């Protein structure tokens, strides 16, 4: 489904990603771990199409089609979803209207009619229940005044609404207490099926106890220095990141 080939990217002339190779197939969960500053968030931003970063070499291919020249919104329509490490607050736009706009834009891109209000309402109820969200958040301005945990839950709620093909969860566990973490992980697991894929970006192994990866990759200094099965996460937890610096 997703193929990243020798990807080099940076910001203002500074190289951050220095040759990433990664292949993800439908139905798989990949975890990307690494110390601070290793390029984890840059990788997720570049896949989503953030224009702050410049791709200098290599390619990102989704379903046999290069994404490099594709606008962020079109990538979203093709099924790329990024759960942000720091979701932005948008005062004046309610969560409900935001997600409604997002869904209808996607449908428009697919040549579908707008989702009737009745169905939208049903979908919102179903997905907010799945994530045990307090409904009062839905009528509030998007993320405005939300706690860190509420923002992350809101991200996964939006993911549930949009049903992406490729979901990238960037440090979704940060800011979540253990109960919220379980709820969010449960939500992700319920959305998981044989046709989609998930990339979990995390610093700690904690989230991977609940969202169990098929593969774990260790990112260090802009490169994947080690890949393995889920046991690699435990090894990292045990030995710490200093261990990989010497690989």
């Amino acid at each position, binding site marked *: 489904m997703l193929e990243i080939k020798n990807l080099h990217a940076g910001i203002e002339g500074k190289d951050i990603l220095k040759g990433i190779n990664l292949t993800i197939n439908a139905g798989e969960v990949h975890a990307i771990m690494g110390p601070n500053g290793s390029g984890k968030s840059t990788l997720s931003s570049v896949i989503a199409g953030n224009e702050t970063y410049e791709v200098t070499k290599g390619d990102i291919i989704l379903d046999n089609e290069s994404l490099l020249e594709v*606008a*962020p*919104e079109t990538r979203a329509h093709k099924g*790329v979803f990024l759960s*942000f490490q720091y979701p932005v607050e*948008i005062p004046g736009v309610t969560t409900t209207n935001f997600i409604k*706009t*997002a869904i209808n*834009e996607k449908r428009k891109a697919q040549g579908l009619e707008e989702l009737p209000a009745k169905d939208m309402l049903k979908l919102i109820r179903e997905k907010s229940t799945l994530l045990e969200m307090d409904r009062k958040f839905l009528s509030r301005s998007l993320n405005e005044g939300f706690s860190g945990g509420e923002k992350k839950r809101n991200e996964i709620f*939006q993911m549930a609404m949009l049903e992406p093909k490729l979901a990238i969860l960037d440090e979704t566990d940060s800011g979540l207490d253990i109960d919220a973490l379980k709820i969010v992980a449960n939500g992700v697991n319920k959305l998981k099926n044989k046709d989609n894929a998930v990339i979990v970006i995390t610093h700690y192994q904690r989230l991977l106890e609940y969202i169990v990866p098929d593969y774990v990759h260790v990112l260090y200094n802009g490169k994947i220095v080690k890949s393995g099965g889920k046991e690699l996460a435990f090894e990292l937890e045990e030995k710490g990141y200093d261990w990989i610096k010497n690989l």
Partner: protein
Amino acid sequence: MSLKEKLISSFIALENKGSVDLDSNIHNIRTKAIEVFEQKGFPTKKDEEWKYTSLKSILKHNYSVFPSSENSVEVNDIKKYFIQGIESYKIVFIDGVYSSFLSETTHDGFDICLLSSAIKKTKHKIVTDYYFNTLANKNDSITALNTAFTTEGTYIHIPKNVMVPKPIQLMYFYTGKENEVMLQPRNLIIVGENSHVQIVERHQCLTKKATVLTNAVTEIFAHKRAIVDWYKIQNDTENASLIDSTFVEQRENSIVSVNTYSFGGKLTRNNLEFHQKGEHIVSNLNGISVLNKKQHVDHHTLVNHIEPNCESHELYKGIYNNASTGVFNGKVIVKKEAQKTNAYQQNNSILIGDKAAVNAKPQLEIFADDVKCSHGCTIGQLDESALFYMQQRGIPKAEAKALLLFAFANDVVEKIKIPELKTTITKLIADKLGVELGFNL
């Protein structure tokens, strides 16, 4: 001959007409006013209050001061400028002349009529003599110019305990039959104790080509516990300029809100003054400016807190595209006696165009010691991280921008109490931002 010279000689001609009663109060007021204008002339950038707004480009025209009368318009050509879907009183002027055919006035329980007839009729003359030009700034040359020349405008007198059942639309149309015209309408509004009225004011040129300069003056008197909601729609054509001076006097427990929506025109200057003469008064000043090309809007506000226990709330938002420019000068005076004053002022601007600029100047003069006064002023750009966030969720960049800008202006839009007007303003903003609304907030 400069415009100033032309105006002065036109004044002499106007007042020498046989019909003018040289002993009348109004004649005296006019004569004094033209003296002020003759002495001071048009303000220049050397004048502190006009530092960021130059009238030079709009004063170079050879305006006709008394446009030819009796121009008619088709109802279909002007229909779209009225608020759709509501019942309202209407007072309509075409090229400065009242159109009874298009208007819907009343004398039933309260008066909505012409200022010219109110000044002449004995019944109203007592009222107009008492109020007319007592509030307007007599030393301001632009206001004085209006006082000297005005022949027409709206007179609204609501006595005690009247809830005016529908909004009043004041519509000043200009047909553009003459190429360069100056119009000087004048409004006098008196709202009695416990009464409530909603008023929408619009100045609109009907052709793009014509150059028009409107110098409008409005005096609003709100008595005890009166509630006045005033909405100014400024969406004129690109060669039309407007200088609007509005003066409000409030008595105790009254609530007056003036909302100004500036989207169109070449140059717009709003002088808005509130004078609080009583306790427990609330004054609300709200504004949204959305400009593009080389448009210029200048909001000059003054809130004069004279008595204790009053409030003022000021919120102005601006979105500046291309090379448009804006000025916000908000003056708040809290007199020594005005203890327990709550005065809030907020002015936020977003600059989108590379050449857009805003000059913001909050001025607080506080002489009382037990007050709450705050002012906030921000000038920024669209939040790029918010744009990317929205794009990531599938919302195209243009629409994401519009959504952010709408969200930015929304708290001012939300203050509109007439739902149909809210729709009108929302549509005007969407038009101005060049988007079709695929969303609501």
